[in-house]
């Protein structure tokens, strides 16, 4: 087996892995019950799926310029996906779009209660 064949096989494996992870991310988006859980599917398998696909592209490309361009693609996905997931998750929590019955513990609601109590007592005083 020549080097080119070995690279082809490696690309094949990475591409298949990336596609599987992306598929699982899609299934998770549809199947998870609330926005917070869905955001997990939208970040982790999605990013790793992209990572594998980019590795496959890098193995096949013959120009350094193309390979160099793959790094910013991955980097900006890694930087932006958590931010958008955070914004959606935050909005979902604030508008109470979440399944409380699936939460083992919610330490944020304790903090919200405390802040509301403090605010109420502060308003009474003034």
């Amino acid at each position, binding site marked *: 087996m020549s080097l080119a064949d070995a690279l082809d096989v490696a690309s094949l494996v990475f591409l298949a892995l990336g596609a599987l992870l992306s598929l699982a991310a899609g299934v998770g988006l549809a199947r998870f019950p609330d926005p917070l859980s869905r955001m997990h599917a939208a970040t982790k398998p999605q990013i790793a799926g992209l990572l594998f696909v980019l590795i496959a592209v890098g193995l096949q490309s013959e120009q350094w310029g193309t390979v160099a361009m793959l790094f910013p693609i991955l980097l900006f996905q890694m930087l932006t996906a958590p931010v958008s997931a955070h914004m959606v998750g935050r909005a979902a929590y604030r508008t109470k779009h979440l399944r409380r019955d699936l939460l083992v*513990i919610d330490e944020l609601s304790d903090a919200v209660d405390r802040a509301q109590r403090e605010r109420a007592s502060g308003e009474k005083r003034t």
Partner: protein
Amino acid sequence: MTAERVRSERSTLLLQLPLLIWLVVLWILLWGHITVVSVLSGIVLALGITRVFYLPPVELSGRFNVYWAAVFVVRFLLDLVRASFLVAWQAIDPRGIPTSAVLLVQLHTRSDFIMTLTAEAISLVPGSIVVEVDREHSRLYVHSLGVKDDAEVEQARRIILAAEERLVRALGTLDDVWHINQERRMNGRPEIRLSAKQKRYEDERERHGERTGDTP
């Protein structure tokens, strides 16, 4: 007056230098080749962008440990792949939907930079999403998927704090390292090996401990 202004402009330029270099490198990466035109246009664009879209300068710590940065990156990539397969499995698990938890994580760091990096990193790695950030108290409220009981809640918390610790070791301030060491001493774990500079800072800190007194 004018001399002062020149000096302050020079110092902002120096502060922005890492950002400028990064913008030029990014520009060259996007072009895919290094030529005189791409480098020059990159420099012009970087200067233009930092002038037009002015942002408050990011306060870097002035510390950078190459070894721990490498540890962080390698660990991060391994965890990313593992966490992805885990979430992928949870998505198609025929036994049904996993339970989860929203937990409070009290970070050690006081710097926005480390806090932001930690929040970014843990959103990708140990199965968590940042729901809310309390910047004043350095607290993250994190949604963790697949947590079943209290023991697993504590484990999720430990994993997040470990990620913060790796980041602090790589590029946290002396003060951040001090906070981590403080907690390690309390829990009887061996403290991070001290550099001479760090040792001096910690001794100083111990002496003035009561007066500054902002221990968590």
